[in-house]
């Protein structure tokens, strides 16, 4: 926290307010939310830091263009419910965004307070979370006034952040929306991927319920590409448009020997078992998962951090992230890395797995690894890891979680006529409108961009909604 600067200012500057958190030692063994949220006093203090700039740069940093200074001013004025309405004009899922957005690289990175270099930026994300949570408790479950139905209807493939955002935007304009979800629960990656301790499932459920109250229809257990196709939605069900937000959802493996040994999981499987299937409650829930003693996680992104922290909470004695570069190149959010370190996750850096070693009954027992060093920067600007000749060693483990990313799941693209994909299988769509090669079909989120963030998917959903309204002549 930057402190007081009495020489320049007469009144002391208020520092950026910390958000209370569960104690690291305690939380490493439970699935309750890590961050506890602002109380009214903290929120008021933090909101009062906002400079209320005439030209708010923060808004330009927000993929869904939330009116940030407006909602923060309303908090300052004590109108928290009003602030929530303001938020929801642009973002149908503020309780989720307030928790999982990488604000430090978006709105907050543009904040003038932080730009001065003397203070830290206004904690916009924490305020968003506070406002939305407050409204959920005190807002009496009111929904916005809806216009008369336009008679138009749109089908949405996938109930993840892109699809839910689009559904929320369209229903507010009188366009009927039906969302088709393959799993038994709504929310996509918000319920199968992001752990309970970062985003409680009850919050996702509440946000979905709000959309349902506004009239969005949901169909679960409905795999588009199998039970019916996008073409069926357009031709048989006569939807005026279809939005594909089916996510990345095809786990990548390193293709090294031993990856099919027992005890080796994709992060998707490990997290789905723990989150969606509630394996942490086993045997009260029926789905088991690995309760490894020594767990190794391949990868350095947010999903790797989520996997490592979940493994700790499931009772692992030692959890290590194996990453081939160093701490400063980790692609995960700083806050997530910080949380993982606090909770006791170990980092085996400059380490590249070569092979997973197995025993006779087919279980993983270790990882043969190569020691690396950093060389010259590569095309991405990151220093390229290079193997140190002869420096090969084994890491003992009983569980391996592969968290190196996701490819495009071909189920929807391959069953939709005349829908163009790129060489990685991602749907080709205009990044400003979501328009695909196919008439009346829009797409956005990870199925277009490859694995990215929740808020970018929300942004894509919002842009596609605007483009659809435009195409339908609805303003």
């Amino acid at each position: 926290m930057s402190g007081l600067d009495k020489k320049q200012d007469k009144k002391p500057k208020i520092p950026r307010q910390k958000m209370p958190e569960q104690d690291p030692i305690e939380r490493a063994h439970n699935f309750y939310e890590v961050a506890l949220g602002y109380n009214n006093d903290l929120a008021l203090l933090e909101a009062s830091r906002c400079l209320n700039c005439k030209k708010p740069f923060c808004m330009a940093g927000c993929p869904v263009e939330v009116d940030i200074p407006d909602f923060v001013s309303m908090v300052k004025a004590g109108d928290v419910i009003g602030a929530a309405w303001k938020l929801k004009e642009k973002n149908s899922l503020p309780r989720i965004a307030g928790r999982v957005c990488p604000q430090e690289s978006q709105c907050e990175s543009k904040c003038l307070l932080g730009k001065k270099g003397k203070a830290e930026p206004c904690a916009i994300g924490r305020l968003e979370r506070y406002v939305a949570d407050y409204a959920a408790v005190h807002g009496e479950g009111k929904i916005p006034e809806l216009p008369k139905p336009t008679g138009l209807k749109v089908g949405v493939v996938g109930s993840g952040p892109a699809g839910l955002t689009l559904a929320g935007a369209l229903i507010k304009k009188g366009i009927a929306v039906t969302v088709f979800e393959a799993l038994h629960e709504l929310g996509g990656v918000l319920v199968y991927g992001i752990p309970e301790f970062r985003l409680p499932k009850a919050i996702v459920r509440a946000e979905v319920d709000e959309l349902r109250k506004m009239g969005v229809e949901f169909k679960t257990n409905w795999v588009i590409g199998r039970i019916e196709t996008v073409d069926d939605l357009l031709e048989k069900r006569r939807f005026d448009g279809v939005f594909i937000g089916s996510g990345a959802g095809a786990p990548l493996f390193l293709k090294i020997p031993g990856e099919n040994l027992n005890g080796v999981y994709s992060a998707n499987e490990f997290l789905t078992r723990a989150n969606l299937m509630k394996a942490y409650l086993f045997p009260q829930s029926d789905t088991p998962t690995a309760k490894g003693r020594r767990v190794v996680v391949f990868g350095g992104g947010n999903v790797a951090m989520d996997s490592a922290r979940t493994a700790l909470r499931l009772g692992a004695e030692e959890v290590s992230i194996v990453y081939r570069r160093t701490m400063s190149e980790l692609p995960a959010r700083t806050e997530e890395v910080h949380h993982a370190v606090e909770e006791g996750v170990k980092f085996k850096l400059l380490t590249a797995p070569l092979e997973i070693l197995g025993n006779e009954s087919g279980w993983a027992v270790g990882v043969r690894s190569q020691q690396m060093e950093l060389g010259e920067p590569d095309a991405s600007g990151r220093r390229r890891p290079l193997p140190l000749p002869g420096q090969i060693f084994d890491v003992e483990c009983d569980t391996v979680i592969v968290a190196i990313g996701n490819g495009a799941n071909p189920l929807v693209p391959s069953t939709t006529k005349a829908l163009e994909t790129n060489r990685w299988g991602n749907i080709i769509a205009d990044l400003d409108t979501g328009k695909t090669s196919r008439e009346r079909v829009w797409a956005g989120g990870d199925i277009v961009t490859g694995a990215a963030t929740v808020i970018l998917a929300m942004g894509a959903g919002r842009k596609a909604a605007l483009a659809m309204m435009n195409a339908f002549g609805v303003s």
Partner: protein
Amino acid sequence: MFEILEKERIGPGVHRAVISAPDIARAHHPGQFIILRTHEDGERIPLTVADKDRDKGTITLVWQEVGVSTYYMGTMCVGDKLQDLCGPLGKPTHIEKFGTVVGIGGGIGVAPLYPITKGMHDAGNHVITIVGARTQGLLIMTEDMNKISDETLIATDDGSFGIHGFVTQVLQGIINKGTKIDLCVAIGPVPMMKAVVNVTRKADVSTVVSLNPIMVDGTGMCGACRVEVGGKTLFGCVDGPEFNGLEVDFDLLMKRLSMYKGPELIALNNFRETPRGCQCALPGGA
């Protein structure tokens, strides 16, 4: 929720149920499967659809009690409901007129074999069906199979019914007679499929097997169902469930199927000790 309309016990620990699922019945093709959840805290388990009736809007499931979900389903009655039913999943069987098709079903594997055999028969193939089980009491659906086959051969390991021997011996007999087999479809316990493939490989007969790896989502998202076919890692749920039997690594499949042996026992014991069971005996359900 998906209501159970008919249910009967067709063998020791083996059940058959007709379930209301009009959308799945409409879209289903032979070879495809569903994933179900019994209740709110239930696991997702895959089961191949044994039959469907598009007019009545029903599908038929056949299962053997092996884990907590299948035991629980065994206690359910007509009128009870399954929490979730998702399907159809997986690729349909490639059905065309091949000539002579030999279908081999071992134990519970006869159930998924039924719609495939029916499809092959309807496509004009000469269908020879071999149904096998350890003993007479474990034979299922022999009458059903007989109706859609040109020849039906039944074998039991202990000789208590039909031919005394394994399905592989019956298959070898057909090959030895000089019958030209254009395609063999084998579904059953992994050791049986492995043994069948050892016979058909020598006789140079194309063989399709349907695999039952452990799955979670069933849409290609989690990769739990990894199988090795022809040296390549594929996903049972979206690349299968049917594969070229001659290329499948059955030993790996067997090892992967045993991955949760310990937890499965814990879950089963927990199930037996807690009052979950027939929903009609316990108003309000489990």
